[in-house]
């Protein structure tokens, strides 16, 4: 068989493997008929990419209604789990950024920023417990999956995540070791022109990225595994409720972070710039803007996941799953 032209052009890559297997040849013939000898335009490529991604979303159950309601509910819960992984990265960034803010905000708005900060911390603990509970109730199904020979299906995902974790934690150990050789002022970003500080900051950023990659790979491994588990309707229903609770916690944390930002920006803007207390400073901080964007993206993703769960949940409750 001659190689598919659309595969050569990288267009079929956007579609899921099962779809390529079923429709790949005829889709390729349609491309030939449509394009002739002309190369595809950027707009053409974009429409194919979007259609392929839509097909992937449909296959995963996060778009459309081509899979049973119970699987759509499960996909919605997994979407919330993915959102939680994004939120963990944003939350870690916020935790680092807000270190020592109480010392920089001694004015009357301190209670507002402290209250918002406490809300973020409490909600983070609640969300962690909810995610752990969600994992715990799938353990019996996971053990059954392993007993029935499921390990080879998930092995490469788990090993990849394990390797990334080992690399990330090794880097973290090295960075912590390096941090102990610095003074608190140096760790705080003073003497920025000193080469050691540059190395420390580069190593810190690289470590954060490595840990984020490890978290992403564990999330992928969890999604791949849970999609293969034989979950009862009760477990899927419980997961749906836990997903809604986690999504609610993410939204509350996003709001609390915005309140914290507003409070600090009005009472101690110098803190956001790392400037001496009392000096003028912009209320904008690149890391905080990035953190807020990530939190918003995660909250929207989680909200969408809950919508999927809710729509499927209604069908589940009516016994038509």
């Amino acid at each position, binding site marked *: 068989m001659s190689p598919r032209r659309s595969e050569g052009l990288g267009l079929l890559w956007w579609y899921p493997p099962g*779809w390529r297997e079923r*429709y790949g*040849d*005829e*889709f*390729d*013939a*349609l*491309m030939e*008929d*449509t394009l002739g000898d002309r190369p595809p335009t950027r707009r*053409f490529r974009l*429409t*194919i990419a*979007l*259609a*392929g991604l*839509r*097909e992937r979303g*449909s296959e995963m159950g996060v778009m*459309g*209604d*081509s899979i049973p309601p119970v699987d759509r509910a499960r996909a919605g819960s997994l979407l919330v789990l993915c959102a939680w992984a994004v939120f963990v990265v944003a939350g870690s960034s916020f935790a680092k950024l807000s270190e020592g803010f109480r010392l920089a905000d001694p004015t009357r708005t301190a209670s507002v920023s402290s209250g918002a900060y406490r809300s973020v911390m409490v909600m983070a603990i609640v969300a962690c417990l909810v995610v752990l509970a969600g994992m715990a109730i799938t353990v019996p199904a996971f053990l059954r999956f392993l007993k029935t020979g499921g390990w080879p299906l998930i092995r490469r995902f788990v090993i990849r995540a394990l390797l990334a974790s080992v690399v990330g934690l090794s880097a973290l150990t090295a960075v912590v070791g390096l941090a102990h050789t610095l003074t608190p002022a140096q760790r705080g970003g003073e003497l920025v022109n000193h080469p050691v500080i540059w190395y420390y900051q580069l190593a810190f950023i690289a470590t954060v990225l490595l840990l984020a990659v490890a978290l992403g790979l564990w999330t992928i491994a969890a999604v791949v595994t849970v999609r293969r588990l034989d979950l009862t309707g009760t477990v899927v229903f419980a997961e749906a409720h836990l997903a809604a609770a986690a999504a609610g916690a993410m939204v509350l944390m996003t709001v609390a972070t915005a309140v914290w930002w507003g409070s600090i920006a009005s009472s101690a803007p110098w803190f956001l710039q790392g400037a001496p207390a009392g000096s003028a400073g912009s209320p904008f901080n690149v890391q905080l803007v990035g953190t807020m964007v990530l939190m918003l993206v995660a909250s929207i993703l989680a909200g969408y996941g809950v919508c999927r769960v809710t729509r499927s949940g209604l069908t589940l409750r009516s016994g038509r799953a």
Partner: protein
Amino acid sequence: MTRNRQPTGLRRSNDPPVLILTSLAAGPKHGHALAKDIEDFAGVALGPGALYGAITRLEERGLIAPLETDDRRRPYRITAAGSTALAEVVEDMRRIADIGASRLGLTPGALA
């Protein structure tokens, strides 16, 4: 008022699934022939992505079916369920067209 179209997923007259069913109501066609026919009768140019997205959904719902062929250009036919679903949509469209024609003071069928 929103009419429930959940079982078939068919909605507006310019939805790709409706256009595909309308085209297949005249006989089986493969992808490129479908795209050309739809462009001729509806003036809608469906790209390969939109066309095959709709074909996938229609086949999943049992509204169209592939025909056996050795050619890479696989033709599709409308099923009985597809004909019923299309008839419902056409009836809806006719009802709305009649109301529109009546309110504009046109004779029903004069818009055709």
